[in-house]
């Protein structure tokens, strides 16, 4: 049975911009969620529709490389629990919905990396209901060819003294199109809460389309929220400096593109996965030993 998958900006805006939401048709109903029960690092290879519930204390690394898939993930962090989720997207047509509930003193660490996907739609809603709940999100993307990347991140902070920190680093090349909607929503009662979000996008080719929607919603006086976004080409001074060390311009662009994602990749915290991601980025030396053979 076909079902609709849609994402929406929490508050709609001017229609001519085409940023208010996205819709896709999924060929089948999503499966019932399976609760993950293991401990330690769990690596999941996702090639078809799947649904999971991740609970406190777990670290889950998802490698999503299906031709077509719908992935549904729920994080349930109860009081004082911590969850770590790493999602590497490099499939073709992937729709993902991630939800999270964070209780008092609960923490979620989220790493999402999007590479080369044809049509990726990712919807993330983090509900920070708990007092002093914390979210760290490191998101990186490299979209090239005719890639379309549609990201919607909604962080709802209703817990007192909740803290969110979201860093997004991206590269758009060739004819890639990307939209990133990032919302921090401070609800009434979230006294002492703080939230920061930053997105940096490097644009390397004239046909890219970059849309950025950094929203802050606020219904509480005692909060501190910041949002920053930059988009643009490589700094001419950086090009000259690296050129003067013998690196030609095309290589500089490649190097800086990889560099952009390097910071996010380092956040994965699992050497095996980090090497796999470098391989996906075309780094030949990803598997090279660092000691004498």
């Amino acid at each position, binding site marked *: 049975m076909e079902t609709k998958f849609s994402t929406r900006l929490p*508050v*709609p*805006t*001017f*229609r*001519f*911009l085409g*940023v*208010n939401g996205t819709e896709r048709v999924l060929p089948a109903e999503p499966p019932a969620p399976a609760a993950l029960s293991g401990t330690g690092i769990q690596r999941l290879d996702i090639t078809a529709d799947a649904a999971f519930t991740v609970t406190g204390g777990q670290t889950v690394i998802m490698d999503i490389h299906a031709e077509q898939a719908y992935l549904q993930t729920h994080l349930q962090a109860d009081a004082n629990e911590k969850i770590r989720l790493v999602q590497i997207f490099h499939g073709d047509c992937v729709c993902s919905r991630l939800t999270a509930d964070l209780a008092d003193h609960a923490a979620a660490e989220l790493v999402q990396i999007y590479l080369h996907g044809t049509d990726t739609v990712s919807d993330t809603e983090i509900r920070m209901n708990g007092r002093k709940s914390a979210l760290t999100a490191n998101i990186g993307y490299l979209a090239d060819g005719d890639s379309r990347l549609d990201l919607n991140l909604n962080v709802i902070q209703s817990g007192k003294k909740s803290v969110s920190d979201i860093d997004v680093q991206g590269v*758009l090349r060739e004819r890639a199109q990307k939209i990133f909607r990032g919302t921090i929503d*401070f609800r*009434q*009662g979230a*006294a002492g809460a703080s939230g920061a979000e930053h997105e940096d996008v490097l*644009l*390397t*080719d*004239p*046909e*890219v*389309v*970059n*849309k*950025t*929607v*950094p*929203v*802050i*919603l*606020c*219904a*509480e*006086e*005692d*909060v*501190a*929220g*910041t*949002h*920053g*976004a*930059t*988009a*643009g*080409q490589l700094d001419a001074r950086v090009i000259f400096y690296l050129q003067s060390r013998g690196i030609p311009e095309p290589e500089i662009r490649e190097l800086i593109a990889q560099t952009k994602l390097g910071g996010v990749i380092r956040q994965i915290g699992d050497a095996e996965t980090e090497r796999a991601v470098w391989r996906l980025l075309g780094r030949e030396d990803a598997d090279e030993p660092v000691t004498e053979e």
Partner: protein
Amino acid sequence: MKQKTQVADIDRSLYDFRYDEDAADLLASGITPEIIREISEEKGDPEWMRQFRLHSLEIFAKTEMPPWGPPVDGLNLDNIVAYIRPKSRMNTDWNDVPENIKETFERLGIPQAERESLAGVGAQYDSELVYHNVRREVAESGVVYTDLESAMHDPRFAEMIRTHFMKLVPPTDHKFAALHGAVWSGGSFVYVPAGVRLEIPLQSYFRLNAKGAGQFEHTLIIVEDDAYLHFIEGCSAPKYYEAGLHAGCVELYVGKRATLRYSTIENWSKNMYNLNTKRAVVAEGGRIEWVSGSFGSHVSYLYPMSILNGRGAHAEFTGITFAGAGQNLDTGAKIVHNAPETSSHIDTKSISKSGGISTFRSAVTVAEQAVGSRSSVSCESLMLDSISRSDTVPVMDIRTDQADIGHEAKIGRISDDAVFYLMSRGLDEQSARAMIVSGFADNVSKELPLEYAMEMNNLIRLEMTGSTG
């Protein structure tokens, strides 16, 4: 204490008074093609304008309300009288202005405000321009400042108006642009010839009076190549129990290397729906500078748009919005980078208090051909209590790699340390907070002529200390 004295100087009732209008002048409520024909006939429109009005009404009937933004359910269009013809016709001499109208202006202090620094006053009473005075030296420089209706009948400007009127803001733009196209009445026409730099600002003062009346004034400004103009628009309205509507339209044409600065301090009464559309198109090397303060109205939708069509064109938007009790003010700016090496800068502050809602909404678009363009957006919001609301909804749409785009937003509260510091120097808490908020608004006040900056600071102090909050 000095602070308090200044606050007491401002009497809210100054902005909240009205006189009975002559009921015979009110055309039947509700907007039908018959009414449009009547308006058109009354004004002696040329045929093209009559057709334009009727066509706009058709579009109005077909167009839906926008699905975003603050609710406008309180607005009953049938109850809004589109057009009220005032007793008076155009006056060039203050002595000929009818007594009750004059009294209104005098209470608003317009003649006093007309100082050396101000080139002229075009004030709109109800729907028509009733008082108009452009200093001789301004006229001698070749600058034309008149009401749009007269200009439309002046053979020197008729063609110019036909080719520019609602070409930037077509009636298809949105529902209230269509309404405006159908029922527009009054407003200003300014023409600054090539190379003329008017160093003193032109000022216009709009005012609503009739109960239930809408105001649909149209401002059309053409600044030719290498010219300079500063135009100041001010609004305030008496208070009513019935919802009022303001759906004005401002169209600005800025020539090559020309600069137009358009300043507004808007203080509609707190029951008004302010659904205003402002737009500028800028040619090669030209500049548009918007300075905008939004204090009044019940609901506002206001996003001045700058279309940068010529190489190296520049847009600057500096704004402040203060939303108090019962207010939902949705304001911001739109910038369209359409040509190479264009640049823009948006700097806004918003303040929410006593249950007020303020939303900053923006759109910066950079087209494929706009290579080498730069844009920076900075918006800062201040929450004064936890029954208010402040939202920031910016969008950037970039379609070339050769652009540098930056956005910064910040939300927060008045720092306790700053309040404590000022209190330790002898200020009471309320005054300390008022002073900090005034400082927060200095991005706009430092861009305004002195007397306007003072008026704005008085408005802020009034909002901070004079109301129930």
